Protein backbone atom coordinates (compact mmCIF):
# COMPACT_ATOMS: atom_id res chain seq x y z
CA UNK A 1 0.00 0.00 0.00
CA UNK A 2 2.81 2.32 0.96
CA UNK A 3 4.68 1.43 -2.21
CA UNK A 4 1.59 2.16 -4.22
CA UNK A 5 1.26 5.57 -2.60
CA UNK A 6 4.92 6.29 -3.26
CA UNK A 7 4.60 5.25 -6.88
CA UNK A 8 1.55 7.45 -7.28
CA UNK A 9 3.13 10.49 -5.71
CA UNK A 10 5.92 10.24 -8.27
CA UNK A 11 3.44 10.02 -11.14
CA UNK A 12 0.89 12.78 -10.73
CA UNK A 13 -0.47 12.14 -14.23
CA UNK A 14 -2.18 8.94 -13.10
CA UNK A 15 -4.90 11.00 -11.44
CA UNK A 16 -5.98 12.54 -14.72
CA UNK A 17 -6.50 9.07 -16.20
CA UNK A 18 -8.33 7.92 -13.08
CA UNK A 19 -10.60 10.96 -13.34
CA UNK A 20 -11.20 10.32 -17.05
CA UNK A 21 -12.05 6.69 -16.36
CA UNK A 22 -14.46 7.63 -13.57
CA UNK A 23 -16.26 10.14 -15.75
CA UNK A 24 -16.49 7.64 -18.59
CA UNK A 25 -17.89 4.97 -16.23
CA UNK A 26 -20.43 7.42 -14.87
CA UNK A 27 -21.52 8.25 -18.40
CA UNK A 28 -21.98 4.69 -19.61
CA UNK A 29 -23.62 3.69 -16.35
CA UNK A 30 -26.18 6.39 -17.06
CA UNK A 31 -26.68 5.29 -20.65
CA UNK A 32 -26.84 1.67 -19.54
CA UNK A 33 -23.62 0.75 -21.30
CA UNK A 34 -24.66 2.27 -24.59
CA UNK A 35 -22.12 3.97 -26.81
CA UNK A 36 -19.13 3.61 -24.48
CA UNK A 37 -16.79 2.87 -27.38
CA UNK A 38 -18.18 5.63 -29.57
CA UNK A 39 -17.72 8.15 -26.77
CA UNK A 40 -14.11 7.11 -26.33
CA UNK A 41 -13.46 7.33 -30.03
CA UNK A 42 -14.99 10.79 -30.21
CA UNK A 43 -13.01 11.82 -27.14
CA UNK A 44 -9.78 10.71 -28.82
CA UNK A 45 -10.53 12.72 -31.89
CA UNK A 46 -11.62 15.93 -30.16
CA UNK A 47 -9.04 15.74 -27.39
CA UNK A 48 -6.18 15.57 -29.88
CA UNK A 49 -6.41 19.27 -30.67
CA UNK A 50 -6.17 20.17 -27.01
CA UNK A 51 -3.30 17.73 -26.62
CA UNK A 52 -1.29 19.34 -29.41
CA UNK A 53 -1.46 22.82 -27.88
CA UNK A 54 -1.30 21.40 -24.35
CA UNK A 55 2.12 19.93 -25.12
CA UNK A 56 3.38 23.34 -26.18
CA UNK A 57 1.85 25.06 -23.17
CA UNK A 58 3.41 22.39 -20.95
CA UNK A 59 6.89 23.16 -22.26
CA UNK A 60 6.35 26.87 -21.68
CA UNK A 61 4.96 26.43 -18.16
CA UNK A 62 7.83 24.09 -17.29
CA UNK A 63 10.36 26.85 -18.00
CA UNK A 64 9.37 28.46 -14.74
CA UNK A 65 6.85 30.49 -12.79
CA UNK A 66 5.30 33.30 -14.80
CA UNK A 67 5.90 31.57 -18.11
CA UNK A 68 2.69 30.93 -19.99
CA UNK A 69 1.73 31.31 -23.65
CA UNK A 70 -1.52 33.21 -24.02
CA UNK A 71 -1.00 33.68 -27.76
CA UNK A 72 -1.88 30.06 -28.54
CA UNK A 73 -5.51 30.78 -29.61
CA UNK A 74 -4.47 33.63 -31.90
CA UNK A 75 -1.69 31.52 -33.38
CA UNK A 76 -4.10 28.66 -34.05
CA UNK A 77 -6.36 31.07 -35.91
CA UNK A 78 -3.55 32.67 -37.87
CA UNK A 79 -2.13 29.30 -38.86
CA UNK A 80 -5.55 28.03 -39.91
CA UNK A 81 -6.30 31.13 -41.96
CA UNK A 82 -2.88 31.15 -43.63
CA UNK A 83 -3.06 27.42 -44.39
CA UNK A 84 -6.52 27.62 -45.93
CA UNK A 85 -5.76 30.71 -47.95
CA UNK A 86 -2.43 29.48 -49.30
CA UNK A 87 -3.80 26.01 -50.08
CA UNK A 88 -6.87 27.55 -51.71
CA UNK A 89 -8.61 24.13 -51.78
CA UNK A 90 -5.90 22.82 -54.16
CA UNK A 91 -4.38 19.49 -53.19
CA UNK A 92 -1.22 20.43 -55.07
CA UNK A 93 -0.71 23.41 -52.80
CA UNK A 94 -1.15 21.37 -49.62
CA UNK A 95 2.51 21.22 -48.71
CA UNK A 96 3.25 24.86 -49.41
CA UNK A 97 0.22 25.77 -47.31
CA UNK A 98 1.52 23.74 -44.38
CA UNK A 99 4.93 25.35 -44.70
CA UNK A 100 3.44 28.84 -44.88
CA UNK A 101 1.24 28.25 -41.82
CA UNK A 102 4.16 26.88 -39.81
CA UNK A 103 6.35 29.76 -40.95
CA UNK A 104 3.75 32.23 -39.71
CA UNK A 105 3.62 30.38 -36.38
CA UNK A 106 7.40 30.43 -36.18
CA UNK A 107 7.35 34.20 -36.60
CA UNK A 108 4.82 34.48 -33.76
CA UNK A 109 7.08 32.40 -31.53
CA UNK A 110 10.09 34.58 -32.35
CA UNK A 111 8.06 37.71 -31.72
CA UNK A 112 6.88 36.42 -28.33
CA UNK A 113 10.39 35.61 -27.25
CA UNK A 114 11.63 38.94 -28.58
CA UNK A 115 9.15 40.78 -26.40
CA UNK A 116 10.04 38.70 -23.36
CA UNK A 117 13.78 38.84 -23.82
CA UNK A 118 14.56 42.14 -25.48
CA UNK A 119 11.82 44.23 -23.96
CA UNK A 120 11.80 42.32 -20.67
CA UNK A 121 8.03 42.10 -20.60
CA UNK A 122 6.56 39.40 -18.33
CA UNK A 123 5.51 36.46 -20.54
CA UNK A 124 1.85 36.58 -19.56
CA UNK A 125 1.56 40.19 -20.75
CA UNK A 126 3.93 39.75 -23.68
CA UNK A 127 2.06 36.81 -25.18
CA UNK A 128 -1.25 38.51 -24.45
CA UNK A 129 -0.21 41.68 -26.27
CA UNK A 130 1.23 39.77 -29.17
CA UNK A 131 -1.95 37.69 -29.40
CA UNK A 132 -3.88 40.92 -30.05
CA UNK A 133 -1.55 41.73 -32.94
CA UNK A 134 -1.62 38.19 -34.27
CA UNK A 135 -5.39 38.06 -34.12
CA UNK A 136 -5.65 41.37 -35.99
CA UNK A 137 -3.29 40.02 -38.63
CA UNK A 138 -5.42 36.91 -39.00
CA UNK A 139 -8.62 38.95 -39.22
CA UNK A 140 -7.22 41.33 -41.77
CA UNK A 141 -5.54 38.62 -43.86
CA UNK A 142 -8.42 36.18 -43.86
CA UNK A 143 -11.14 38.76 -44.14
CA UNK A 144 -14.48 37.34 -45.18
CA UNK A 145 -13.02 34.19 -46.60
CA UNK A 146 -14.39 30.78 -45.95
CA UNK A 147 -12.18 28.35 -47.84
CA UNK A 148 -12.57 24.61 -47.64
CA UNK A 149 -9.48 22.52 -46.91
CA UNK A 150 -8.02 20.38 -49.72
CA UNK A 151 -9.63 16.92 -49.63
CA UNK A 152 -6.52 15.02 -48.45
CA UNK A 153 -6.19 17.30 -45.41
CA UNK A 154 -9.85 16.91 -44.54
CA UNK A 155 -9.52 13.15 -44.95
CA UNK A 156 -6.45 12.98 -42.78
CA UNK A 157 -8.14 14.98 -40.06
CA UNK A 158 -11.31 12.91 -39.98
CA UNK A 159 -10.17 9.43 -41.03
CA UNK A 160 -10.41 6.50 -38.61
CA UNK A 161 -8.55 3.21 -38.49
CA UNK A 162 -10.35 0.49 -36.51
CA UNK A 163 -12.33 3.21 -34.82
CA UNK A 164 -9.25 5.12 -33.80
CA UNK A 165 -8.81 8.55 -35.39
CA UNK A 166 -5.67 8.75 -37.51
CA UNK A 167 -4.99 12.19 -36.07
CA UNK A 168 -4.83 10.62 -32.61
CA UNK A 169 -2.08 8.28 -33.83
CA UNK A 170 -0.26 11.22 -35.36
CA UNK A 171 -0.51 13.13 -32.08
CA UNK A 172 0.66 10.03 -30.21
CA UNK A 173 3.85 10.10 -32.26
CA UNK A 174 4.17 13.81 -31.58
CA UNK A 175 3.73 13.14 -27.85
CA UNK A 176 6.39 10.44 -27.84
CA UNK A 177 8.74 12.81 -29.62
CA UNK A 178 8.16 15.49 -26.99
CA UNK A 179 8.62 12.95 -24.19
CA UNK A 180 11.97 11.88 -25.64
CA UNK A 181 12.91 15.50 -26.15
CA UNK A 182 12.27 16.20 -22.48
CA UNK A 183 13.89 13.15 -20.94
CA UNK A 184 16.79 12.38 -23.22
CA UNK A 185 18.07 15.59 -24.77
CA UNK A 186 20.10 18.52 -23.57
CA UNK A 187 17.14 20.74 -24.42
CA UNK A 188 14.91 18.75 -22.05
CA UNK A 189 17.38 19.04 -19.20
CA UNK A 190 17.79 22.72 -19.77
CA UNK A 191 14.01 23.29 -19.77
CA UNK A 192 13.80 21.65 -16.36
CA UNK A 193 16.88 23.45 -15.06
CA UNK A 194 15.74 26.85 -16.31
CA UNK A 195 12.31 26.18 -14.83
CA UNK A 196 13.77 25.62 -11.37
CA UNK A 197 16.31 28.39 -11.28
CA UNK A 198 17.35 30.45 -14.26
CA UNK A 199 20.55 31.75 -12.75
CA UNK A 200 21.66 28.34 -11.52
CA UNK A 201 20.89 26.95 -14.99
CA UNK A 202 23.14 29.55 -16.58
CA UNK A 203 25.91 28.82 -14.08
CA UNK A 204 25.53 25.09 -14.78
CA UNK A 205 26.42 25.74 -18.40
CA UNK A 206 23.01 25.91 -20.08
CA UNK A 207 22.17 28.50 -22.68
CA UNK A 208 19.12 29.99 -21.01
CA UNK A 209 18.15 32.27 -23.88
CA UNK A 210 18.31 29.50 -26.44
CA UNK A 211 16.21 27.26 -24.21
CA UNK A 212 13.48 29.83 -23.72
CA UNK A 213 13.57 30.80 -27.39
CA UNK A 214 13.18 27.19 -28.50
CA UNK A 215 10.36 26.70 -26.03
CA UNK A 216 8.26 29.64 -27.17
CA UNK A 217 8.90 28.75 -30.81
CA UNK A 218 7.94 25.12 -30.18
CA UNK A 219 4.74 26.22 -28.47
CA UNK A 220 3.87 28.47 -31.43
CA UNK A 221 4.69 25.71 -33.93
CA UNK A 222 2.48 23.24 -32.08
CA UNK A 223 -0.32 25.81 -32.08
CA UNK A 224 0.32 26.10 -35.84
CA UNK A 225 0.00 22.35 -36.29
CA UNK A 226 -3.23 22.46 -34.30
CA UNK A 227 -4.53 25.26 -36.54
CA UNK A 228 -3.85 23.28 -39.73
CA UNK A 229 -5.35 20.01 -38.49
CA UNK A 230 -8.31 21.74 -36.92
CA UNK A 231 -9.07 23.58 -40.17
CA UNK A 232 -8.97 20.25 -41.96
CA UNK A 233 -11.23 18.70 -39.33
CA UNK A 234 -13.87 21.39 -39.25
CA UNK A 235 -13.97 22.18 -42.96
CA UNK A 236 -12.05 25.43 -42.96
CA UNK A 237 -10.63 28.12 -40.71
CA UNK A 238 -12.72 30.43 -38.56
CA UNK A 239 -11.70 33.57 -36.73
CA UNK A 240 -12.84 32.20 -33.38
CA UNK A 241 -11.46 28.72 -33.87
CA UNK A 242 -8.73 29.19 -31.26
CA UNK A 243 -10.85 30.75 -28.55
CA UNK A 244 -11.60 27.71 -26.43
CA UNK A 245 -7.94 26.67 -26.34
CA UNK A 246 -6.77 29.47 -24.09
CA UNK A 247 -8.26 27.98 -20.97
CA UNK A 248 -8.14 24.40 -22.22
CA UNK A 249 -4.40 24.44 -22.89
CA UNK A 250 -3.62 25.69 -19.39
CA UNK A 251 -6.17 23.43 -17.74
CA UNK A 252 -4.83 20.21 -19.29
CA UNK A 253 -1.28 21.08 -18.29
CA UNK A 254 -2.20 21.62 -14.67
CA UNK A 255 -4.71 18.80 -14.36
CA UNK A 256 -2.14 16.57 -16.04
CA UNK A 257 0.24 17.07 -13.14
CA UNK A 258 2.85 19.39 -14.62
CA UNK A 259 4.29 21.57 -11.88
CA UNK A 260 3.07 25.14 -12.13
CA UNK A 261 6.14 26.17 -10.17
CA UNK A 262 8.26 25.02 -13.11
CA UNK A 263 10.90 22.38 -13.71
CA UNK A 264 8.70 19.31 -13.86
CA UNK A 265 6.64 18.37 -16.92
CA UNK A 266 4.15 15.54 -17.13
CA UNK A 267 3.70 14.40 -20.71
CA UNK A 268 1.19 11.53 -20.29
CA UNK A 269 -0.90 13.77 -18.04
CA UNK A 270 -1.74 15.96 -21.04
CA UNK A 271 -3.53 12.98 -22.61
CA UNK A 272 -5.36 12.02 -19.47
CA UNK A 273 -6.43 15.58 -18.79
CA UNK A 274 -7.55 16.34 -22.35
CA UNK A 275 -9.60 13.16 -22.54
CA UNK A 276 -11.00 13.88 -19.08
CA UNK A 277 -12.08 17.37 -20.12
CA UNK A 278 -13.84 16.08 -23.22
CA UNK A 279 -15.52 13.20 -21.41
CA UNK A 280 -16.69 15.60 -18.74
CA UNK A 281 -18.56 17.69 -21.27
CA UNK A 282 -19.98 14.52 -22.84
CA UNK A 283 -21.15 13.28 -19.48
CA UNK A 284 -22.91 16.54 -18.67
CA UNK A 285 -24.52 16.47 -22.11
CA UNK A 286 -25.70 12.94 -21.49
CA UNK A 287 -27.17 13.95 -18.16
CA UNK A 288 -29.08 16.60 -20.06
CA UNK A 289 -27.43 19.53 -18.31
CA UNK A 290 -27.91 22.89 -19.97
CA UNK A 291 -24.94 24.79 -21.39
CA UNK A 292 -24.86 27.04 -18.36
CA UNK A 293 -24.83 24.20 -15.87
CA UNK A 294 -22.04 22.61 -17.90
CA UNK A 295 -20.06 25.83 -17.62
CA UNK A 296 -20.44 25.99 -13.85
CA UNK A 297 -19.72 22.30 -13.36
CA UNK A 298 -16.65 22.41 -15.63
CA UNK A 299 -15.29 25.22 -13.51
CA UNK A 300 -16.06 23.49 -10.25
CA UNK A 301 -14.54 20.23 -11.40
CA UNK A 302 -11.31 21.95 -12.45
CA UNK A 303 -11.14 23.40 -8.94
CA UNK A 304 -11.99 20.10 -7.27
CA UNK A 305 -9.35 18.26 -9.31
CA UNK A 306 -6.64 20.72 -8.41
CA UNK A 307 -7.70 20.71 -4.76
CA UNK A 308 -7.55 16.91 -4.62
CA UNK A 309 -4.30 16.71 -6.54
CA UNK A 310 -2.92 19.34 -4.18
CA UNK A 311 -0.25 21.89 -4.80
CA UNK A 312 3.48 21.63 -4.48
CA UNK A 313 4.64 20.15 -1.23
CA UNK A 314 6.58 22.56 0.92
CA UNK A 315 10.28 21.88 0.71
CA UNK A 316 11.92 21.44 4.06
Amino acid at each position, binding site marked *: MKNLAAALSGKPWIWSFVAAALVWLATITYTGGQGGGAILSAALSFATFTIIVGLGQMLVITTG*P*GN*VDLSIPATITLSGVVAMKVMDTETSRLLIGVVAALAASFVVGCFNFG*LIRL*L*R*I*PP*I*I*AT*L*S*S*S*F*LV*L*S*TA*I*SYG*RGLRIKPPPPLAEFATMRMLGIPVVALFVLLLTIAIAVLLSRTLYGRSVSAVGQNMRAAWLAGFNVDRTRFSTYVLSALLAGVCGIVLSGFSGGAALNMGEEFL*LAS*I*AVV*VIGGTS*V*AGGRASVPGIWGAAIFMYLLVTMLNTFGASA*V*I*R*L*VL*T*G*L*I*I*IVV*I*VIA*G*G*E*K*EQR
Partner: protein
Amino acid sequence: MINRSLLRQALPFLSLAVVLAATFYVQPRTMSYFGLNLMLQYAVPIALATIAQMFIITVNDLDLSIGPFVGLVGCVSATLLYNDPFLGVLALLALIACYGAVGALIHLRNLPSIVVTLGLSFVWLGIAVLILPSPGGKAPDWLKAIMSFQFPYVPFPIVAAVVIGLVVHVALMNSSFGVIARGAGGNPKALARAGWSLLWTKVSMYLLAGFFGVLSGLSLLGLTTSADAHVADRYTLYSIAGVILGGGEFVGGRVSPLGAVVGALTLALAGSFLIFLKISPDWQIGAQGAILIIVLALRAAVTYGEKRA
Protein backbone atom coordinates in the same frame (compact mmCIF):
# COMPACT_ATOMS: atom_id res chain seq x y z
CA MET B 1 21.88 62.81 -14.30
CA ILE B 2 18.29 61.59 -14.26
CA ASN B 3 17.06 59.90 -11.15
CA ARG B 4 16.03 56.60 -12.66
CA SER B 5 14.12 55.31 -9.69
CA LEU B 6 11.99 58.44 -9.77
CA LEU B 7 11.59 58.05 -13.51
CA ARG B 8 10.34 54.51 -13.05
CA GLN B 9 7.75 55.65 -10.56
CA ALA B 10 6.75 58.49 -12.84
CA LEU B 11 6.48 56.28 -15.90
CA PRO B 12 2.83 55.25 -15.43
CA PHE B 13 1.93 58.93 -15.17
CA LEU B 14 4.06 59.84 -18.19
CA SER B 15 2.44 57.09 -20.28
CA LEU B 16 -0.97 58.40 -19.32
CA ALA B 17 0.09 61.93 -20.28
CA VAL B 18 1.38 60.74 -23.65
CA VAL B 19 -1.79 58.80 -24.48
CA LEU B 20 -3.85 61.77 -23.31
CA ALA B 21 -1.83 64.21 -25.45
CA ALA B 22 -2.10 61.92 -28.46
CA THR B 23 -5.87 61.75 -28.01
CA PHE B 24 -6.14 65.54 -27.77
CA TYR B 25 -4.02 65.87 -30.89
CA VAL B 26 -6.11 63.44 -32.91
CA GLN B 27 -9.43 64.76 -31.64
CA PRO B 28 -9.11 68.27 -30.13
CA ARG B 29 -12.77 68.28 -29.15
CA THR B 30 -12.03 65.76 -26.42
CA MET B 31 -10.08 68.45 -24.61
CA SER B 32 -13.13 69.53 -22.65
CA TYR B 33 -15.03 68.63 -19.54
CA PHE B 34 -17.57 66.57 -21.44
CA GLY B 35 -15.07 65.05 -23.80
CA LEU B 36 -12.99 63.74 -20.93
CA ASN B 37 -16.06 62.68 -19.04
CA LEU B 38 -17.21 60.63 -22.00
CA MET B 39 -13.83 59.10 -22.77
CA LEU B 40 -13.10 58.14 -19.20
CA GLN B 41 -16.59 57.18 -18.09
CA TYR B 42 -15.58 53.56 -17.58
CA ALA B 43 -12.43 54.52 -15.72
CA VAL B 44 -13.98 53.97 -12.30
CA PRO B 45 -15.05 50.33 -12.71
CA ILE B 46 -11.81 49.49 -14.47
CA ALA B 47 -9.77 51.19 -11.75
CA LEU B 48 -11.68 49.32 -9.04
CA ALA B 49 -11.18 45.98 -10.78
CA THR B 50 -7.49 46.78 -11.18
CA ILE B 51 -7.20 47.52 -7.46
CA ALA B 52 -8.89 44.19 -6.75
CA GLN B 53 -6.37 42.42 -8.97
CA MET B 54 -3.55 44.31 -7.28
CA PHE B 55 -4.47 42.94 -3.86
CA ILE B 56 -4.20 39.43 -5.24
CA ILE B 57 -0.90 40.17 -6.98
CA THR B 58 0.45 41.60 -3.70
CA VAL B 59 0.40 38.11 -2.22
CA ASN B 60 1.96 36.56 -5.36
CA ASP B 61 -1.26 35.19 -6.81
CA LEU B 62 -3.17 36.06 -9.95
CA ASP B 63 -6.92 36.36 -10.36
CA LEU B 64 -8.16 35.21 -13.76
CA SER B 65 -11.76 35.40 -12.61
CA ILE B 66 -12.14 39.08 -11.78
CA GLY B 67 -13.78 39.96 -15.14
CA PRO B 68 -16.59 37.39 -14.91
CA PHE B 69 -16.90 38.23 -11.21
CA VAL B 70 -17.55 41.89 -12.01
CA GLY B 71 -20.14 40.74 -14.56
CA LEU B 72 -21.79 38.51 -11.98
CA VAL B 73 -21.95 41.34 -9.43
CA GLY B 74 -23.71 43.42 -12.11
CA CYS B 75 -26.25 40.67 -12.74
CA VAL B 76 -26.93 40.13 -9.04
CA SER B 77 -27.29 43.86 -8.46
CA ALA B 78 -29.58 44.46 -11.43
CA THR B 79 -31.97 41.78 -10.27
CA LEU B 80 -31.75 40.83 -6.60
CA LEU B 81 -30.45 44.15 -5.26
CA TYR B 82 -33.00 46.05 -7.36
CA ASN B 83 -35.93 43.92 -6.23
CA ASP B 84 -34.98 43.24 -2.64
CA PRO B 85 -32.13 45.39 -1.30
CA PHE B 86 -31.72 43.28 1.84
CA LEU B 87 -31.31 40.00 -0.03
CA GLY B 88 -29.16 41.76 -2.60
CA VAL B 89 -26.71 43.05 -0.02
CA LEU B 90 -26.64 39.62 1.56
CA ALA B 91 -25.83 38.04 -1.82
CA LEU B 92 -23.03 40.52 -2.46
CA LEU B 93 -21.58 39.88 0.99
CA ALA B 94 -21.74 36.17 0.26
CA LEU B 95 -19.77 36.75 -2.96
CA ILE B 96 -17.07 38.60 -1.01
CA ALA B 97 -17.00 35.75 1.50
CA CYS B 98 -16.49 33.36 -1.43
CA TYR B 99 -13.37 35.27 -2.36
CA GLY B 100 -12.06 34.93 1.17
CA ALA B 101 -12.81 31.21 1.16
CA VAL B 102 -10.98 30.78 -2.13
CA GLY B 103 -7.99 32.59 -0.66
CA ALA B 104 -8.02 30.24 2.33
CA LEU B 105 -8.30 27.21 0.07
CA ILE B 106 -5.42 28.37 -2.12
CA HIS B 107 -3.24 28.94 0.93
CA LEU B 108 -4.14 25.80 2.86
CA ARG B 109 -3.75 23.44 -0.08
CA ASN B 110 -0.88 25.43 -1.58
CA LEU B 111 -2.66 25.61 -4.95
CA PRO B 112 -1.71 27.54 -8.06
CA SER B 113 -4.04 30.53 -8.05
CA ILE B 114 -4.09 30.71 -11.86
CA VAL B 115 -5.83 27.36 -12.15
CA VAL B 116 -8.26 27.85 -9.28
CA THR B 117 -9.36 31.27 -10.53
CA LEU B 118 -9.49 29.95 -14.08
CA GLY B 119 -12.03 27.38 -12.85
CA LEU B 120 -13.80 30.08 -10.87
CA SER B 121 -14.17 32.25 -13.95
CA PHE B 122 -16.37 29.52 -15.47
CA VAL B 123 -18.38 29.33 -12.26
CA TRP B 124 -18.99 33.09 -12.01
CA LEU B 125 -19.90 33.34 -15.67
CA GLY B 126 -22.24 30.36 -15.44
CA ILE B 127 -24.07 31.71 -12.42
CA ALA B 128 -24.33 35.14 -14.03
CA VAL B 129 -25.91 33.66 -17.17
CA LEU B 130 -28.19 31.57 -14.97
CA ILE B 131 -29.43 34.71 -13.22
CA LEU B 132 -29.69 36.78 -16.38
CA PRO B 133 -29.76 34.62 -19.53
CA SER B 134 -29.92 37.69 -21.74
CA PRO B 135 -28.86 41.28 -21.01
CA GLY B 136 -31.38 43.07 -18.87
CA GLY B 137 -32.31 43.98 -15.33
CA LYS B 138 -32.27 47.45 -13.84
CA ALA B 139 -29.72 49.38 -11.88
CA PRO B 140 -30.93 50.74 -8.52
CA ASP B 141 -31.61 54.46 -8.83
CA TRP B 142 -29.15 55.48 -6.12
CA LEU B 143 -26.42 53.71 -8.06
CA LYS B 144 -27.27 55.57 -11.25
CA ALA B 145 -27.33 58.80 -9.28
CA ILE B 146 -23.89 58.24 -7.85
CA MET B 147 -22.36 57.34 -11.19
CA SER B 148 -23.88 60.29 -13.02
CA PHE B 149 -22.70 62.71 -10.38
CA GLN B 150 -21.34 65.89 -11.93
CA PHE B 151 -18.28 67.33 -10.30
CA PRO B 152 -17.33 70.95 -10.97
CA TYR B 153 -14.30 71.63 -13.22
CA VAL B 154 -12.87 68.12 -13.19
CA PRO B 155 -14.88 65.18 -14.56
CA PHE B 156 -16.15 62.84 -11.85
CA PRO B 157 -14.46 59.67 -13.16
CA ILE B 158 -11.06 61.31 -12.84
CA VAL B 159 -11.72 62.57 -9.33
CA ALA B 160 -13.17 59.24 -8.25
CA ALA B 161 -10.30 57.22 -9.70
CA VAL B 162 -7.68 59.45 -8.10
CA VAL B 163 -9.41 59.32 -4.72
CA ILE B 164 -9.66 55.52 -4.92
CA GLY B 165 -6.01 55.29 -5.86
CA LEU B 166 -4.87 57.60 -3.07
CA VAL B 167 -6.91 55.94 -0.35
CA VAL B 168 -5.69 52.46 -1.25
CA HIS B 169 -2.16 53.76 -1.70
CA VAL B 170 -2.04 55.17 1.81
CA ALA B 171 -3.64 52.02 3.22
CA LEU B 172 -1.29 49.59 1.53
CA MET B 173 1.97 51.52 1.27
CA ASN B 174 1.94 53.57 4.46
CA SER B 175 -0.08 51.72 7.04
CA SER B 176 1.40 49.20 9.41
CA PHE B 177 -1.09 46.61 8.12
CA GLY B 178 -0.06 47.24 4.52
CA VAL B 179 3.52 46.38 5.42
CA ILE B 180 2.43 42.95 6.63
CA ALA B 181 0.48 42.34 3.42
CA ARG B 182 3.37 43.35 1.19
CA GLY B 183 5.80 41.44 3.39
CA ALA B 184 3.70 38.32 2.82
CA GLY B 185 4.41 38.75 -0.88
CA GLY B 186 8.09 39.55 -0.38
CA ASN B 187 9.13 36.79 2.01
CA PRO B 188 6.26 34.68 3.38
CA LYS B 189 8.59 32.51 5.45
CA ALA B 190 10.03 35.48 7.28
CA LEU B 191 6.55 36.71 8.04
CA ALA B 192 5.53 33.36 9.47
CA ARG B 193 8.67 33.29 11.60
CA ALA B 194 7.77 36.66 13.03
CA GLY B 195 4.53 35.10 14.23
CA TRP B 196 2.07 36.45 11.63
CA SER B 197 -0.60 34.24 10.16
CA LEU B 198 -0.06 33.87 6.44
CA LEU B 199 -3.52 32.37 6.16
CA TRP B 200 -5.18 35.48 7.52
CA THR B 201 -3.02 37.80 5.49
CA LYS B 202 -3.98 35.99 2.33
CA VAL B 203 -7.64 35.76 3.27
CA SER B 204 -7.72 39.49 4.03
CA MET B 205 -6.23 40.31 0.65
CA TYR B 206 -8.74 38.06 -1.11
CA LEU B 207 -11.59 39.61 0.88
CA LEU B 208 -10.38 43.06 -0.13
CA ALA B 209 -10.18 41.91 -3.73
CA GLY B 210 -13.74 40.60 -3.50
CA PHE B 211 -14.89 43.86 -1.96
CA PHE B 212 -13.32 45.97 -4.70
CA GLY B 213 -14.64 43.54 -7.30
CA VAL B 214 -18.13 44.17 -5.94
CA LEU B 215 -17.54 47.94 -6.03
CA SER B 216 -16.37 47.59 -9.63
CA GLY B 217 -19.48 45.64 -10.61
CA LEU B 218 -21.77 48.16 -8.89
CA SER B 219 -20.13 51.18 -10.50
CA LEU B 220 -20.22 49.51 -13.91
CA LEU B 221 -23.92 48.77 -13.48
CA GLY B 222 -24.50 52.39 -12.46
CA LEU B 223 -23.04 53.44 -15.81
CA THR B 224 -24.63 50.85 -18.08
CA THR B 225 -27.95 50.89 -16.11
CA SER B 226 -28.69 47.33 -17.18
CA ALA B 227 -26.63 44.20 -16.70
CA ASP B 228 -24.98 41.66 -18.99
CA ALA B 229 -23.08 38.61 -17.80
CA HIS B 230 -20.36 39.14 -20.40
CA VAL B 231 -19.99 42.89 -20.02
CA ALA B 232 -16.75 42.73 -18.04
CA ASP B 233 -15.02 39.70 -19.56
CA ARG B 234 -12.16 41.89 -20.71
CA TYR B 235 -11.60 43.26 -17.22
CA THR B 236 -9.43 40.31 -16.28
CA LEU B 237 -6.86 41.28 -18.87
CA TYR B 238 -7.26 45.01 -18.28
CA SER B 239 -6.75 44.61 -14.56
CA ILE B 240 -3.59 42.51 -14.91
CA ALA B 241 -2.18 44.84 -17.53
CA GLY B 242 -3.12 47.86 -15.42
CA VAL B 243 -1.23 46.59 -12.37
CA ILE B 244 1.84 45.83 -14.47
CA LEU B 245 1.63 49.11 -16.39
CA GLY B 246 1.41 50.83 -13.03
CA GLY B 247 4.75 49.47 -11.95
CA GLY B 248 3.69 46.31 -10.15
CA GLU B 249 5.46 43.00 -10.43
CA PHE B 250 3.94 39.52 -10.49
CA VAL B 251 5.91 38.22 -7.56
CA GLY B 252 7.63 39.68 -4.57
CA GLY B 253 4.92 41.94 -3.15
CA ARG B 254 5.94 44.91 -5.28
CA VAL B 255 2.85 46.88 -6.21
CA SER B 256 1.75 50.48 -6.47
CA PRO B 257 -1.97 51.20 -6.02
CA LEU B 258 -1.74 54.71 -7.45
CA GLY B 259 0.28 53.39 -10.37
CA ALA B 260 -2.28 50.63 -10.93
CA VAL B 261 -5.13 53.12 -11.14
CA VAL B 262 -3.15 55.24 -13.56
CA GLY B 263 -2.33 52.14 -15.58
CA ALA B 264 -6.02 51.30 -15.75
CA LEU B 265 -6.85 54.85 -16.86
CA THR B 266 -4.21 54.63 -19.58
CA LEU B 267 -5.78 51.45 -20.92
CA ALA B 268 -9.29 52.92 -20.81
CA LEU B 269 -8.06 55.99 -22.66
CA ALA B 270 -6.13 53.95 -25.21
CA GLY B 271 -9.42 52.31 -26.20
CA SER B 272 -10.99 55.70 -26.95
CA PHE B 273 -7.86 56.93 -28.70
CA LEU B 274 -7.99 54.03 -31.11
CA ILE B 275 -11.58 54.79 -31.98
CA PHE B 276 -10.64 58.39 -32.78
CA LEU B 277 -7.74 57.21 -34.92
CA LYS B 278 -10.33 55.68 -37.24
CA ILE B 279 -8.10 52.75 -38.01
CA SER B 280 -9.68 49.75 -39.68
CA PRO B 281 -11.77 47.69 -37.26
CA ASP B 282 -9.59 44.71 -38.17
CA TRP B 283 -6.68 46.39 -36.45
CA GLN B 284 -8.47 47.84 -33.42
CA ILE B 285 -7.50 45.00 -31.16
CA GLY B 286 -4.03 44.75 -32.65
CA ALA B 287 -3.40 48.42 -32.00
CA GLN B 288 -4.37 47.89 -28.39
CA GLY B 289 -1.73 45.19 -28.18
CA ALA B 290 0.78 47.52 -29.78
CA ILE B 291 0.11 50.25 -27.22
CA LEU B 292 0.58 47.77 -24.41
CA ILE B 293 3.88 46.67 -25.89
CA ILE B 294 5.18 50.20 -26.36
CA VAL B 295 4.41 51.28 -22.81
CA LEU B 296 5.90 48.13 -21.33
CA ALA B 297 8.98 48.46 -23.50
CA LEU B 298 9.48 51.97 -22.21
CA ARG B 299 9.19 50.78 -18.66
CA ALA B 300 11.62 47.97 -19.35
CA ALA B 301 14.11 50.44 -20.80
CA VAL B 302 13.91 52.65 -17.73
CA THR B 303 14.19 49.78 -15.26
CA TYR B 304 17.06 48.28 -17.20
CA GLY B 305 18.93 51.56 -17.15
CA GLU B 306 18.29 51.81 -13.44
CA LYS B 307 19.86 48.44 -12.77
CA ARG B 308 22.90 49.32 -14.82
CA ALA B 309 23.37 52.71 -13.22
